[in-house]
C-alpha cells in the first residue's frame, strides 16, 4: 500500500511531463487499439464471408462445347437445319441433346467427395403441354426470339413451357431466396424423385388462366424411348406465386412471366428422353480453402475437359480480399503504434530513472531491496499506462469504426479494376453464355464484405489488457536495468 502511495505520488513530481507522456501514450494506444479492433473485425468478417461465399461449385458441360455447337449450327442454312431435323431419328436427336448434358454418374461421384456437404442436380428443358395456353409466348414469337432459338435446333411453340427438375423442390434457390413462394399444395421431395412420381409445381397466374388447381392433371407431349409420340399425365401437387421475375440473362432461358414448371428430376429426364443425364449439378462444400482439392477430385473423376467445374471463388475473393488487406494494413498499424508506445514509455522511464539516480542510491542506503524500488516504479508505469489506456479506449470507441470504414473503402477502391478483369476473363463470361447460375445456388449476401463492423467486445477488452500488460512490462526494462545498476556508494558521493 505504501509502495503504491509512493509510486502514485511520484507521478505528481513532474505533472507536465506525466501529462505529456500520458497524452503521447494515449494517442499511440488509441491508434493501436483501433487497429486491433479493425483487425479483429476484418478477421471475423473474412470467416463470415468464408461461411457464406466461396463454398459453392457447379458442374456443367464446358462452355467450349456450347461454343463449338453454336458455330456449327450457325454455319448451316435454314433449309439444311430443317432437313436435318426431318431426317434425324429419335436416337440421333437424343444423342444430340446428350451432347450438352452431363452424365449423372459423374455428378454423383463428385458428390461423394469428403468436402461436399450438400448436392443437387438439375435438368432444365422445354416441354410441350398441348392443352395449356401460354399466351405470354406471343411476345417471344413477335420479337423473333423463337426463330433465333430455332437456329440453335430448339423448337419453341405456343404450348412450350420451361421445365426444371431437381431432387427436392424445397431446396431450389428460387424458393429458398423467396423469389417464388408456394401458395397451395406441397413441394415434391426426394421420395418423389426416387419413385419418379409424375408430379409438378405450376405458377399461380398460369394455373388461374387455365383454371387448374392442385390435384388436377396436365398432359405433356413427349417421345418415348423408341421415338414414338406419346403423352405423359402430370399431377399438379403445388401452386407457387412469383414474387420476383426471373432474370433475362439468357436468350433461351427468357421467362419473365414465370411460366415455369418444377418437377422431380427423374420425371423431367423422362419428359426430355434423357435418362441418366443432367445439365447442371450444384455442390456446397465445406470451405473455400478446399476449392483446389475439390477441383482436383473433379478433374480426376471427369477425366476430360468436356465438363467443367466452376466455383464462386472470385465472388469470395471480391468480398474477402479487401477485408484481408484491411486486416494486414491494420496489423502493420497495430505493431507500428505499439512500437511507438513502447519507445515513448522507454524514453520517459529513462528520463525518470536518470533523474532519480541519487534517490535510488538513498533508497538502497536506507535498506530498500531492489524489488521494493522496482515495485514503486512499476506503480508509476502502470498508472501512466492505465490512464493512457482508459483515454485510448474512449478514443478507440469513437474512431475505430471510421478508421475501419476508411481502410476498407481504400482497399475496395484499389481492388475494383483487378476484380473486374478477373470476372471478364473467367467465370463471368461462361455464366453469361450459359445463362446465369444454377437453380441450386442461393443468393450470396455481398453486404458482409462491403462494410466492416468494428465491435468493442470482450475480446478487444482482453487484448487491451494484454497490450497494457505488455507495454508495462516492456516499460519496466529501463527501471530494472537502472535500479540493478545503481551503486549507492558511487551516486551518493556526487553532489
Amino acid at each position: 500500500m505504501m509502495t503504491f502511495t509512493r509510486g502514485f505520488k511520484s507521478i505528481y513530481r513532474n505533472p507536465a511531463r506525466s501529462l505529456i507522456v500520458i497524452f503521447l501514450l494515449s494517442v499511440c494506444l488509441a491508434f493501436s487499439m483501433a487497429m486491433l479492433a479493425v483487425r479483429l473485425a476484418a478477421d471475423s468478417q473474412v470467416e463470415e464471408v468464408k461461411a457464406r461465399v466461396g463454398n459453392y461449385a457447379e458442374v456443367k458441360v464446358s462452355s467450349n462445347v456450347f461454343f463449338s455447337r453454336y458455330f456449327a449450327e450457325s454455319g448451316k442454312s435454314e433449309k439444311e437445319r430443317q432437313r436435318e431435323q426431318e431426317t434425324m431419328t429419335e436416337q440421333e436427336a437424343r444423342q444430340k441433346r446428350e451432347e450438352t448434358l452431363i452424365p449423372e454418374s459423374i455428378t454423383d461421384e463428385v458428390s461423394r467427395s469428403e468436402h461436399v456437404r450438400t448436392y443437387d442436380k438439375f435438368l432444365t428443358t422445354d416441354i410441350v403441354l398441348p392443352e395449356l395456353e401460354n399466351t405470354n409466348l406471343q411476345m417471344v414469337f413477335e420479337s423473333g426470339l423463337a426463330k433465333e432459338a430455332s437456329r440453335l435446333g430448339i423448337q419453341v411453340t405456343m404450348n412450350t413451357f420451361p421445365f426444371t427438375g431437381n431432387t427436392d423442390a424445397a431446396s431450389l434457390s428460387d424458393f429458398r431466396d423467396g423469389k417464388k413462394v408456394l401458395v397451395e399444395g406441397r413441394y415434391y421431395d426426394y421420395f418423389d424423385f426416387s419413385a419418379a412420381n409424375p408430379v409438378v409445381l405450376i405458377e399461380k397466374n398460369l394455373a388461374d388462366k387455365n383454371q387448374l388447381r392442385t390435384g388436377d392433371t396436365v398432359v405433356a407431349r413427349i417421345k418415348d424411348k423408341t421415338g414414338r409420340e406419346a403423352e405423359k399425365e402430370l399431377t399438379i401437387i403445388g401452386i407457387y406465386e412469383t414474387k420476383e421475375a426471373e432474370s433475362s440473362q439468357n436468350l433461351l432461358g427468357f421467362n419473365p412471366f414465370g411460366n415455369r414448371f418444377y418437377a422431380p428430376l427423374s420425371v423431367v429426364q423422362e419428359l426430355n428422353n434423357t435418362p441418366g443425364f443432367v445439365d447442371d449439378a450444384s455442390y456446397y462444400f465445406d470451405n473455400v480453402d478446399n476449392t483446389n482439392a475439390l477441383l482436383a477430385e473433379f478433374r480426376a473423376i471427369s477425366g476430360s475437359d468436356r465438363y467443367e467445374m466452376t466455383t464462386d471463388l472470385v465472388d469470395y475473393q471480391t468480398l474477402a480480399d479487401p477485408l484481408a488487406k484491411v486486416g494486414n494494413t491494420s496489423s502493420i498499424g497495430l505493431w507500428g503504434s505499439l512500437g511507438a508506445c513502447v519507445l515513448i514509455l522507454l524514453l520517459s522511464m529513462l528520463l525518470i530513472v536518470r533523474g532519480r539516480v541519487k534517490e535510488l542510491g538513498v533508497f538502497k542506503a536506507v535498506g530498500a531491496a531492489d524489488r521494493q524500488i522496482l515495485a514503486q516504479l512499476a506503480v508509476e508505469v502502470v498508472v501512466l499506462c492505465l490512464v493512457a489506456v482508459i483515454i485510448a479506449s474512449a478514443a478507440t470507441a469513437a474512431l475505430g469504426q471510421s478508421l475501419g470504414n476508411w481502410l476498407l473503402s481504400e482497399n475496395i477502391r484499389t481492388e475494383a479494376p483487378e476484380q473486374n478483369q478477373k470476372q471478364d476473363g473467367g467465370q463471368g463470361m461462361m455464366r453469361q453464355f450459359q445463362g446465369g447460375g444454377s437453380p441450386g445456388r442461393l443468393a450470396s449476401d455481398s453486404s458482409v464484405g462491403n462494410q466492416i463492423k468494428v465491435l468493442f467486445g470482450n475480446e478487444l477488452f482482453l487484448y487491451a489488457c494484454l497490450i497494457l500488460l505488455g507495454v508495462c512490462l516492456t516499460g519496466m526494462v529501463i527501471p530494472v536495468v537502472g535500479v540493478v545498476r545503481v551503486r549507492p556508494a558511487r551516486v551518493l558521493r556526487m553532489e
Partner: protein
Amino acid sequence: MNGVEVRDLTKRYRTRGGEVIALDGVSLDAQPGRMTAVVGPSGSGKTTLLYIVGSLEAPDAGSVRVGERDIFSSGLNLVDYRRKTVGFVFQFFNLVNTYTALENVMLPMAMTGVARSEQKRRARELLERMGIGPERWNHRPTRLSGGEQQRVAIARALANDPQVILADEPTGNLDSGTGKIIVEILRELSREGRCVLVATHDENVAGLSDSVAHLKDGRLVG
C-alpha cells in the same frame, strides 16, 4: 550493543589513469558507546571506509566485523544489515526532496514493513528529539535549513534503531555553530551505547570525539 572491528581492509578502484588504492590494509576498532572519528584530507579513504562498513561497497581484501559476524563472508543479508544495523548520515543530507521531513524519516521503517501508524509515531518522536517541531514535519527538505536537514537525516538514520551510526562529513556543509549542534547530537547517540563512526577532515569534530584515527592515502597513520 556491538562495536565495529575492521581488519586489513583494502579497496582499489580502477580508473582511466590506472589503479587507485583507496584503502591499504586499514585496521580499526570502533567501540559501542564511543564516538570514533576518522580524520584525514580529501581522498584519504574516509568515505570509502564508511561505505564498506555500511556494506554499500565490498572490500577487495580484509574483514569488517559488527558484533560477532563478518558482514561480507558470513552470508549475512546485506539489505537487512543496512536496514537494521547501520544508519547513515551524509555530508549533503541526501534527503528525498519530494517527501516531507516526516516521510523521509518514515522511509527506512517502510522498508522493514513497520505499520504506517507506528512509522508516524516513531518518526514524530525522532524529529521532536532532533529539535524539529511539528510545524516543520510536513515541510519538504528544500524548505528546511541545512542544520534542519541534517537533523532530519540523523532522525532518518535512527529510524530503525541501529547499533552503528556512520556519519560522513556530517558538518561539512554546515556553519560552525550548527556543526557543533550536530556533533553534540552524535555524541549523545554514542552515549546511548551506539557505535558512532564519523568521517571528517575537521579537527574540531575530531577533538570532540572519544577516539581518533588518522588516514592518509588509504593508510592509517596514527
